[in-house]
């Protein structure tokens, strides 16, 4: 079977061996969780609990009236200690509910359990997904029920599950695919039913043979579900790249996969959908890879949302003495943290710790026009030219040259021999273009 792929892209070192064979295990139940009240893309939520109130595991603690939002649930049973501002892994300062754990958990989510999908229609499935607070768990945290709410004028042909996991080091999706393939297939069927899509495809990078075999095994006999191997190449798990690789369609610039009849979800998101429907379990815990050479005992853990990342690191044997950088997410798109007192959220799929000698600090030198960034960009942009425009505040030119199509995958910065932080300038440029658009409106 020849692996499918997109054009251009890069081949970083994958470094998945640190954790790929470590089975998922439950992290220690935290004594306190700090749950940020904004863990989705969309409108802010209203808090539903007060200081001193007793809450149950899975109880909704924040919700909103807006269509594009996802409620948040208590990840332990316990007492609301306070509501205060915290810094989330994305660096945003947000309100958070601090819950002191009780001795035992009692699940009380108000969600019914459904053995199978037969008695549920699309609306009911969407409602469960929404009430369970499920968002894209690949990192973007876009509310999943919104993705499968299909406008009347659109038809969906495919629900694609993203099991590419192209970020180096991370192995969570891999483990979930190996250990919980039936849940993923159940979730996929629910998403297909909600989106009224006839076909489902699971795209997995071909360096994850075990995951491919596991998923193929789980969907045997399902004629409308296919597992396809895609080439191991970054950013294969980018939504647009995966669609291009699997079905050869292009998402129009500024548009959504929905515009070409596709809905894409992460494999771990599909497993969370299954948990919500079958077990009445909202999204209060998730899996994470705690990895990197700066970690004493790399692990794949299942943790409660709102657990301190420092605590998770301790459970993976703690930091080595010469650990120098702690990143939430993977090395290509993850965010470096300046301290460990940060709660892990619904989109936190990895904690990567790098050693001092792995963290190279670069002095950028002038661009030599080598065009490696142009040849690497999976969106076919010209990073070097866009950066010239950005440095000269040429906002109209940036827009003309399609800067808004940049997916910030970092391939350009990765390949640059002059070590110019190209994607950093592109982010600045995108912000400038957006600011100008807001001003015009």
């Amino acid at each position, binding site marked *: 079977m020849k692996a499918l792929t997109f054009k251009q892209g890069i081949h970083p070192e994958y470094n998945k061996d640190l954790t790929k064979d470590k089975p998922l295990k439950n992290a220690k139940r935290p004594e306190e969780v700090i749950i940020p009240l904004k863990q989705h893309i969309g409108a802010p939520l209203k808090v539903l609990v007060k200081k001193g109130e007793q809450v149950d595991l899975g109880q909704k603690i924040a919700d909103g009236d807006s269509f594009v939002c996802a409620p948040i649930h208590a990840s332990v049973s316990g007492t609301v200690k306070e509501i205060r501002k915290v810094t989330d892994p994305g660096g945003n300062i947000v309100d958070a509910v601090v819950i002191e754990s009780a001795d035992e958990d009692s699940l009380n989510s108000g969600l019914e359990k459904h053995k199978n999908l037969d008695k549920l229609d699309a609306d009911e499935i969407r409602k469960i997904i929404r009430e369970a607070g499920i968002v894209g768990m690949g990192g973007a945290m876009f509310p999943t029920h919104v993705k499968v709410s299909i406008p009347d004028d659109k038809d969906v042909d495919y629900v694609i599950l993203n099991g590419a996991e192209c970020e180096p080091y991370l192995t969570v999706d891999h483990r979930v695919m190996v250990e919980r393939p039936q849940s993923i297939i159940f979730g996929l069927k629910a998403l297909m039913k909600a989106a009224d899509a006839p076909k489902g495809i699971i795209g997995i990078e071909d360096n994850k043979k075990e995951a491919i075999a596991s998923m193929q095994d789980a969907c045997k006999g399902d004629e409308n579900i296919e597992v396809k191997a895609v080439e191991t190449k970054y950013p294969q798990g980018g939504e647009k790249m995966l669609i291009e690789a699997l079905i050869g369609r292009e998402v129009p610039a500024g548009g959504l996969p929905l515009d070409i009849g596709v809905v894409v979800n992460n494999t771990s998101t599909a497993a969370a959908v299954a948990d919500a429907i079958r077990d009445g379990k909202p999204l209060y815990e998730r899996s994470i890879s705690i990895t990197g050479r700066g970690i004493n005992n790399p692990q794949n853990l299942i943790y409660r949302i709102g657990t301190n990342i420092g605590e998770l690191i301790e459970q993976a044997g703690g930091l080595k003495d010469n650990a120098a950088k702690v990143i939430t997410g993977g090395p290509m798109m993850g965010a470096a943290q300046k301290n460990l007192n940060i709660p892990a959220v619904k989109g936190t799929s990895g904690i990567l710790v790098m050693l001092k000698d792995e963290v190279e600090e670069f002095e950028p030198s002038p661009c030599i026009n080598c065009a490696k960034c142009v040849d690497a960009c999976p969106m076919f942009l010209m990073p070097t030219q866009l950066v010239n425009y950005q440095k000269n505040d040429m906002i109209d030119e940036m827009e003309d040259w399609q800067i808004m199509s940049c997916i910030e995958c*970092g391939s350009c910065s990765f390949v640059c021999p002059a070590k110019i932080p190209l994607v950093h300038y592109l982010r600045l440029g995108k912000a400038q273009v957006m600011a100008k658009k807001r001003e015009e409106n």
Partner: protein
Amino acid sequence: MNNELIVTSSPHVRSQDSVDKIMWSVVLALLPAVFAAVYFFNARAISVILAAVAGAVLTEYIFQKVRNKKITINDGSAVVTGLLLALTLPPSIPLWTSFFGSVVAIGLGKQVFGGIGHNPFNPALVGRAFLTASYPVLMTTWTVDGVSTATPLSQMKMDGIATDTWRLFVGQIGGSLGETSALALLLGFAYLLYKGYVNWRIPLSMIGTVFLGIFVFGSDPIFHIFGGGLMIGALYMATDMVSSPTTKSGRWIFGIGAGFLVVVIRLWGGYPEGVMYSILLMNTAVPLIDRYTRPRSLGEVK
């Protein structure tokens, strides 16, 4: 521990390539041509090359020192310029001329524009153009084994004498130090291709255009490809990253344009050569070529 964590923006891993690695790889790639030069033109080739490299590195150093900039002579780019210039000079050229050519190449061709990355023209060719205009006699006196001779192209142009193809290919002919042995130049180019430090579209389209053009107008294309500076120009100078296009289609246009100009100059112009001016002329068009060959981005409706 916590307050010592390093925070930078993503990505947190980088490829192992660097500007220094690219430049020194080009130097390495030019070594076969240097050995060929020494083999065909004796030890004098070494002195000419050393004079040019010294001129280039020294000028780079002085400019950066005077302008209070970081000294970057270790990045190898000045060495490349000196080496490339030397390889386009006749073996009998006085050492001071070789040195002076490099001073102009780096000074006027590169540093006045702001140094590495900012030069619109290939610096080595700027140096060579300066020498050709200023010292035409020195620049067109050729010797092989101590005997004065003419280059195959000028023999053809002036006297209608053709040269044996095999001698053309290995380089046993009159000509500049490094341009005579196509074999040596191709060896080095293959290495750069393998490392991914050079693009193949420009040389392929440039040499292809010369082949076709010469063939169509009734001359011997093999002779024109191996008989002069086309090989070194197409493989190492037209492909200079700084002064060539960044888009794939732009590289085709650049190569075809340069090849076309070579044909025009060689067949109808006053010079037997033409590679140098072809590349310099196309260098001027690079910003324009890049501007009009931006690829369609994924999902864009143009």
